[in-house]
């Protein structure tokens, strides 16, 4: 009766998909763990922004590559998981708004960067937990 139910041990991944893990990059993911002062406040604001499709902060997803602060001028380097990301303008606008709202920030320059390319390796441990909780296998 149960003979049609596949045994877990027989499960094979889709033959047409290459399940690459991607390369990890020494300085990434950047999380602002060592940031102080205004930079720390900017990282906090960035942590508050969620990916539009999954319940994970964009920082834990590994989209933020760096934050630098020069007086009130903030520069954020950010990437996207996919070059054709339909939420690009929505996300960049949200980042600009959230950072601008931080007390002490006068100006923000958001730079979209594409190298190193984002891979799953950029997701933080906490981010991986969030994604697992959401039902993704990672």
């Amino acid at each position, binding site marked *: 009766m149960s003979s049609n139910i596949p045994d877990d041990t027989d499960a094979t991944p889709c033959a*047409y998909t290459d399940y690459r893990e991607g390369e990890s990059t020494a300085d990434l993911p950047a999380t602002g763990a060592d940031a102080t002062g205004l930079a720390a406040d900017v990282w906090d604001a960035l942590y508050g922004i969620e990916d539009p499709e999954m319940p994970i902060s964009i920082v834990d997803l590994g989209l933020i590559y760096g934050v630098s602060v020069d007086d009130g001028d903030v520069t954020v380097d950010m990437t996207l998981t*996919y*070059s*054709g*990301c*339909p*939420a690009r*303008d*929505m996300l960049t*606008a*949200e980042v*600009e*708004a959230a950072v*601008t709202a931080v007390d002490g920030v006068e100006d923000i320059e958001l730079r*979209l*960067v*594409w*190298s*190193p*390319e*984002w891979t799953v390796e950029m997701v933080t441990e906490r981010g991986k937990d969030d994604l697992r909780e959401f039902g993704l296998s990672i």
Partner: protein
Amino acid sequence: MAASLENPDELDERERTALKTLLKRLADDEFVLAERYTEWQVRAPSLESDLALANNAQDELGHARLWYDVLGDVGLEERDLVYERDPGDFRHSTLVELPFEEGDWADAVLRSYLYDVAEDLRLEALVDSTHPKIADRVGKIRSEEEYHLEHAQNWLERLADGGEGRERLQDALDRLFPYAFTLFEPCAPPRGANEASGDEPRAVDPDVEDDIVDLGLRDATLEEMGEEWLSIVVPYLESLDLELPVDGRADDGADEFEFEVTEAMLPEERGRDGTHTDAWFDLYDEFTHTYRELERTETTRIMDKPE
């Protein structure tokens, strides 16, 4: 050679023209091919192929945007580059603008194959570009392109297996191959960029293509890429029992290829030089229709920029 061409304010006229010409080749190809691919949405032969091609179209739009973004540094915005651009200023190869005949899936698959092999070669030639923004984008784009070639080859092999599919492939090959050569044709510089161009179609300035390589923006010539392209696509298509209209083999070597394109091998309209088929002007009218009808003067954003 310039050490870095990153700062747009430090570019001289020659560098600026070379950069613009290269980026328009890259971006316009991707943008126009994506426009054509989307015509297959809800019409492809299976649900999987429908989703695959729609997804490839989205990839190509994303890549077009990555290249157009770099043109933003030299003062050209999306509006100037797409919606308010003179259709005669587009520099894509005419391979990507040709319409599909209704239901001719073999055309879509073969076109994608011919194009994606060429794209892979030109991306490879951009890995060490002297323009950092170009070099930085290549890895991302290549990682997304890999699947396109896999998809095209997978379908080519199925279609070539016999019967009507093979015939349709052969027809598509006879029709498309001359247009595929235009992928490697030299560009006329952007309008107004150079007096030599005279803003007239066909006024190709070979110096611009030389400059692209001399400045290290791309490290292979069109001819070198064309030769490598032939050495990949010819044996592969022959292995599927397809007959090549021209095989590009050098006289004495069985697998030595020479990219010697004569006028007779090329179609009348080549795209790179600003000449286009009528189908292009129809397609242009179509994708700019809503923009014009709504009397837009700028591109629509999902959200307003924050103050």
